């Protein structure tokens, strides 16, 4: 039911993205914006690097005690009158959500932004079962109208230009005057606000994600800038929280560590506008709030990676900083990655969630430049983990045969220095002679990948080792 990945077509997807003019415009705007705002904000927090260390250590501690904290969380939720539903996979989670919606004959469900909801394809599933899901995050709303998936963890409509938003709204809001002026972004936002307000007030169920689950308080946490998540979880009769297992944190004090690094990493804000802790349904004397509070705890393959060489990816707090700083993402955007998560973290998570055989190119679609790791708030060693995926691909013979043969041939020589020097001597001469006076080659045997977009600089005729030998001979 969830979205079928096209990650194996990364190269083709990327080629399309590189030719997509509006996308390239949108990516350019986003790149300039996000890098600088993060830098400015981080500069105002001298403890930022220490907070990152603590965030990493905290997450490692949680991952080593995950059963304990989840059970504590469950008990705390029950104590406050809420319910916890343990769902090993997407299918059981979808079924549980539908079951809860059916208890109140829900017709409309409002949704706050939830990546796990995207991951399990909850929208399509509810729709197929006669329930209308309404995305309320502005970016999610835009892509829902366009029938797209998010292209960024925190900016789902990052790939859409303002002009495209206008087109989308004109096509979708057919009840409004077609001649209305939608020239500026403020008017577009006001129109979405108006449209969604009606949705908030009529929804029977509100579904949100969770940035954190506070174990000792039984509280879930959402962090937003728009306030849509709060309307989603306050107005309907039922509040359903979709959360993956690694979101649990021991206490509010620990959550503060992550809150102090999340917004700074994500949007370059000192703090997001709304951080809300929700525990249980409304209290008897409360004047508003939902009557039921359900937490759907979802594993969906994560626990299988505990204790593995890829475990550290479970530290991720979904800030999107690795996307914002990734030169590959800057070139191709999120959709080229072919599934829900994109960028460096997407290249780690997608193989985990859809199977590495369905996401073969992703761990390889990185120069391992390390800029992602340098900004990750919980210091996930993304290049190392990408390499670990590559090792799994290599050992399971997922790596393409041509590449394996090339590597084998290269390794055979590299492990035999005498042979290596002989072959490189021949190669140095050959490339030098092929280039002639020109100094570079616009095509060369076996180098089409290189010469498609660049020339190949020529050699200088003789290898260093050959010349060094000759010099040393002359010296002694």
């Amino acid at each position, binding site marked *: 039911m969830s979205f079928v990945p096209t990650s194996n077509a990364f190269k083709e997807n990327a080629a399309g993205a590189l030719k997509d003019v509006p996308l390239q415009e949108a990516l350019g705007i986003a790149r300039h914006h996000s890098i600088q705002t993060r830098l400015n904000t981080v500069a105002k927090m*001298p403890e930022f690097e220490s907070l990152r260390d603590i965030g990493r250590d905290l997450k490692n501690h949680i991952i080593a005690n995950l059963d304990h904290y989840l059970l504590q969380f469950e008990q705390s939720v029950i104590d406050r009158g809420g319910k916890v539903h343990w769902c090993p996979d997407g299918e059981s989670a979808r079924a549980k959500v539908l079951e809860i919606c059916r208890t109140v004959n829900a017709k409309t469900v409002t949704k706050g932004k939830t990546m796990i909801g995207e991951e399990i394809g909850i929208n399509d599933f509810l729709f197929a079962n006669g329930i209308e899901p309404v995305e309320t995050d502005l970016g999610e709303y835009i892509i829902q109208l366009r029938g797209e998936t998010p292209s960024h963890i925190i900016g789902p409509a990052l790939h859409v230009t303002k002009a495209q938003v206008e087109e989308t709204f004109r096509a979708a809001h057919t009840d409004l005057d077609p001649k209305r002026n939608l020239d500026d972004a403020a008017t577009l936002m006001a129109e979405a606000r108006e449209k969604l307000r009606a949705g908030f007030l009529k929804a029977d169920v509100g579904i949100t994600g969770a940035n954190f689950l506070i174990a000792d308080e039984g509280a879930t946490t959402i962090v937003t800038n728009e306030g849509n998540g709060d309307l989603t979880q306050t107005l309907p009769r039922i509040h359903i929280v979709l959360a993956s297992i690694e979101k649990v944190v021991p206490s509010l004090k620990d959550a503060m560590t992550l809150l102090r690094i999340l917004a700074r990493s994500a949007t370059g804000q000192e703090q997001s506008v709304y951080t809300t802790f929700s525990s249980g349904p409304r209290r008897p004397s409360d004047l508003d709030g939902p009557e039921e509070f359900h937490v759907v705890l979802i594993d969906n393959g994560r626990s299988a990676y505990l*204790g593995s060489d890829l475990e550290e990816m479970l530290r991720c707090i979904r800030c999107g900083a690795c996307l914002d700083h990734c030169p590959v993402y800057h070139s191709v955007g999120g959709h080229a990655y072919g599934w829900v998560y994109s960028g460096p973290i997407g290249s780690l998570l997608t193989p985990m969630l859809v199977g590495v055989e369905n996401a073969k190119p992703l761990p390889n679609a990185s120069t391992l430049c390390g800029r992602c790791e340098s900004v990750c708030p919980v210091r996930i060693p993304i290049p190392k983990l990408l390499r670990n995926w590559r090792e799994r691909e290599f050992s399971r013979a997922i790596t393409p045969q041509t590449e394996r043969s090339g590597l084998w041939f290269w390794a055979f020589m590299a492990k035999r220095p005498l042979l290596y020097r002989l072959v490189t001597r021949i190669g140095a001469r050959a490339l030098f002679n092929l280039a002639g006076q020109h100094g570079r080659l616009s095509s060369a045997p076996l180098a089409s990948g290189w010469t498609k977009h660049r020339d190949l600089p020529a050699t200088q005729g003789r290898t260093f080792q050959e010349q060094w030998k000759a010099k040393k001979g002359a010296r002694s």
Partner: protein
Amino acid sequence: MSTSGTGRDRMLASIRAGISRQADRRHGEPAPSKPTPLIPARATAPGVDVVGLFRTQLINAKATLDEVASRDDVPAAVARYLANNNFEARVRLSPDARVSSLPWDKAPMVETSSGRSHGNDPTSVTPAVAAVAETGTMVLQSSDGTPTTLHFLPDQHVVVIAKSQIVGTYEDALARVKRGPDGSLPRTVNFVTGPSRSADIGKILLMGAHGPKKLHVIVVDGEL
């Protein structure tokens, strides 16, 4: 993963299997312990002007600020805020006494009512648990006198606090949340740092996405 048993049993079994793999990888080393949280010095260092920091950070968060001498001055300050910005002279108050018992008769032009919001209140006036200097954040909670809908549905949200409610850090503010008899958190605790906003259209930052378009804070020098 085993396919028998309840989802809960299967998930816990799989998680525990993973945790024993971790133990194997650690070669007998203990599991990582929980680190001690670090509270930034910005609002806690000796000599920090917490109120001054709050003022600066509140403005940085794109909220507006008014300061009055006593609780009796609040209704006039609200009336002034509405008039100066050309907002409708009608406010929805939290039933909480800190707001509803203010001398609203001193602002006869302002129509008041109290209770939760159903989505047709232009402006709300609410109290807060505390205000946090480190990022200019208002901390609000749900209770029988402070409905959460007033924090999100109106176009303008006015928060009234006493100066003594301004604290340095989130931790200080959380310590002031009024808990249930069993020690539990209220249904909702909101950290609010400025008015609602979005940059989802072309990365252009705009105020007033879904929540209040304006956040206005009135600080009372005396008690509320």
